């Protein structure tokens, strides 16, 4: 218990109690009392000054996803708060545990259009798991405890706490902190119906052509080993959504690749041939399912899911299994027969062979003409042994990097999946590095997205976060250009970019940087980048008009996946 402390100090004490060691943010008028306390507590709480508040939320997301802890972002009222919103929305749709703290004008000024007043509670409501405005210092301890509990428990998500300036100044006679373990109106993890486990097991044991699609629920539930046991006992081929990537090693014989718009050929086509589809911790996003009217209609469907609102939302399921997949996948094991589905698994290999010949070989093992994005990823693979963290932005490079990067460790793929936020990667990358400093973090970013948060190079320089940045530069907003080529008769409206010299810009921030245009130099330059101790930027000039295939055109069926 502490006596006679200010609300601002109470905020700091709450963060320390929640084992927060780093926060990402940007100061300003309405949050200054908290920053004043941060100054006094800098030996316990490390503050990373981003160059824009959007960078603070993305960094907090990167931190949360590499460390498994709650990421914290802090900003002032008004524009500081509104600048956080894109990152909050991204965290909401990708279930990332983040606590955002915003300053607010004094409570007597609320509603008066005071300087830098904005209704951030109203603005953030649809994109937060929970939010709350503190107007009295006495509320701080309880609200922070709830915020961290809500952000991390059940299906994780972002929480925003808005604190009026007078509450930060207000003195508390005494301050005590108790972690929150329960909220009476909130059921973080739904109860599992034992019958559902038995029914699911029956379907799994009977199935001739079962197929698993797993999502981020496996990673968020720390259920990687339960999931491996599950697929290995049942012998069922398993494919990942973009956020499920890295939960099991790339080279596992039952890992058959990615589903969805730019997923692998086999998993997409065979979605419409399996007799049982087992969804594990995923939410049937439209980029995964394509046209719902022709999605897995022939199959029975089992859905292992923590969020009851996701069950039967997009796809009607036969057997929902509610609960944390760590528990449900463990609990179902005794009911499952040991099996293998050799013939069925080999069908995926057959489709892979077709995809390899028509798509993969030409770009992954390219040896003439301009550089391809895929071969850059191949060379990165050759130099990282599947042990680095991949952070990607949004667009063609993201699809290629996720398709081809080899992973041996979980929590290694950090990308903006649901929201598709360009500008995510650079701040998320140093957040990820700070969240797990021992691991190599490689950010693969397009030339478009890089320029959306390019100022965060300043944060990287100041914080000395040893992030490796690979810009795949085709001087185009490549994904939009691909759609223009395929669906808008090549009318390239506002997608060609006249870019600055990225190397010069990086050098302006005192970050070591190089540019590579030739195939013969690629391996050497990437090795140099990885061996470098500090942050490093490598610009790779790639073929201007490459397309990403396979592709399920928007609104088409998964079985109509195109290879060219």
């Amino acid at each position: 218990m502490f006596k006679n402390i200010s609300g601002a100090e109470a905020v700091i004490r709450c963060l320390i109690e929640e084992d927060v060691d780093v926060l990402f943010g940007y100061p300003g008028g309405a949050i200054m009392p908290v920053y004043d306390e941060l100054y006094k507590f800098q030996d316990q709480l490390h503050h990373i000054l981003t160059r824009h508040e959007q960078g603070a939320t993305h960094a907090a997301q990167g931190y949360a996803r590499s460390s498994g802890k709650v990421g914290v972002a802090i900003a002032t009222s008004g524009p500081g708060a509104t600048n956080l919103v894109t990152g909050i929305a991204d965290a909401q749709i990708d279930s990332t545990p983040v606590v955002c703290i915003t300053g607010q004008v004094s409570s007597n000024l609320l509603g008066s259009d005071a300087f830098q007043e904005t209704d951030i509670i109203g603005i953030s409501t649809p994109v937060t798991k929970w939010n709350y405005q503190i107007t009295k210092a006495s509320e701080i301890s309880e609200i922070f405890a709830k915020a961290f509990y809500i952000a991390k428990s059940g299906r994780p998500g972002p929480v925003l706490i808005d604190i009026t300036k007078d509450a930060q100044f207000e003195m508390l006679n005494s301050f005590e902190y108790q972690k929150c373990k329960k909220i009476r109106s909130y059921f973080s993890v739904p109860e599992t119906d034992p019958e559902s486990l038995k029914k699911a097991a029956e379907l799994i044991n009977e199935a001739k052509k079962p197929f698993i699609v797993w999502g981020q629920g496996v990673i968020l539930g720390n259920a990687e080993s339960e999931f491996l046991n599950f697929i290995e006992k049942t012998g069922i081929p398993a494919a990942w959504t973009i956020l499920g990537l890295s939960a099991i090693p790339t080279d596992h014989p039952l890992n058959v690749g990615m589903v969805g718009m730019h997923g692998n050929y086999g998993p997409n086509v065979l979605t419409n041939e399996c007799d049982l589809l087992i969804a594990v911790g995923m939410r049937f996003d439209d980029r995964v399912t394509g046209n719902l009217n022709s999605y897995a209609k022939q199959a029975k469907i089992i859905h292992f899911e923590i969020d009851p609102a996701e069950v039967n939302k997009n796809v009607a399921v036969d057997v929902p299994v509610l609960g944390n997949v760590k528990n449900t996948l463990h609990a179902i094991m005794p009911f499952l027969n040991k099996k293998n589905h050799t013939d069925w698994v080999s069908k995926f290999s057959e489709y892979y062979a077709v995809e390899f010949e028509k798509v993969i070989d030409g770009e992954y093992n390219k040896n003439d003409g301009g550089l391809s994005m895929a071969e850059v990823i191949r060379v990165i693979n050759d130099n990282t042994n599947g042990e680095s963290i991949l952070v990607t932005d949004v667009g063609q490079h993201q699809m290629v990097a996720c398709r081809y990067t080899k992973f041996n460790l979980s929590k290694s793929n950090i990308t903006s999946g649901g929201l598709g936020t360009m500008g995510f990667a650079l701040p998320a990358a140093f957040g990820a590095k700070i969240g797990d400093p021992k691991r190599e973090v490689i950010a693969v970013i397009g030339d478009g997205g890089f320029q959306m948060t390019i100022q965060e190079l300043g944060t990287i320089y100041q914080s000395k976060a040893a992030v490796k940045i690979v810009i795949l530069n085709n001087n185009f907003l490549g994904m939009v250009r691909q759609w223009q080529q395929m669906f808008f008769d090549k009318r390239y409206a506002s997608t060609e970019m006249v870019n600055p010299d990225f190397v010069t810009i990086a050098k302006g921030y005192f970050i070591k940087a190089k540019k590579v245009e030739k195939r013969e130099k690629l391996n050497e330059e990437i090795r140099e980048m990885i061996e470098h101790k500090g942050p490093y930027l490598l610009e790779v000039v790639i073929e201007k008009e490459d397309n990403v295939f396979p592709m399920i055109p928007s609104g088409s069926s998964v079985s109509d996946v195109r290879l060219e």
Partner: protein
Amino acid sequence: MKKTNYTISIYTENNVGLLNRISAIFLKRHINIRSITSSESEISNIYRFIIVVKVDDDKIVKLVKQIEKQIEVIAAFYHTDKETIFLETALYKVKSKSLFNEREIQNIIKESRANIVTVKPEYFVIEKTGWREETEELYKKLKKHGLLQFVRSGRISVSKKSMEITKFLKSNKDE
């Protein structure tokens, strides 16, 4: 898809901003709220919202799950009109002159089983509680004689089957 009138009952904590959070769920799905009322429920400090919407039959379950997912929502239920007992209250403000001058008004009030709430020299106020059709019928009849003001409440409703809200509160055990 068939659209049906549903009454959604939402039990919540008593917090600032919760109405905004609930209405945002309808906004995001472009669903118009037909009526909404809120008051303290049978349990002290737990509030109950009654929201009436007309939506596709396959949407209502998803909608209610999204509402229930909100942290401070304890439980949410939905019912068709047949599954609830519901009423609305309407107030009609009429010039006193017309009450005394036109005998028909007195008959209308009697027949509709409306109550006279207050009578002043300039105006009087009639209250009618019932189904929408009933308050609407009275509105149409009185309108001919000149209404100074008319207001109708949102629907209030109780379900025929029990909504075991206390069960929800008790079952949320420590983790």
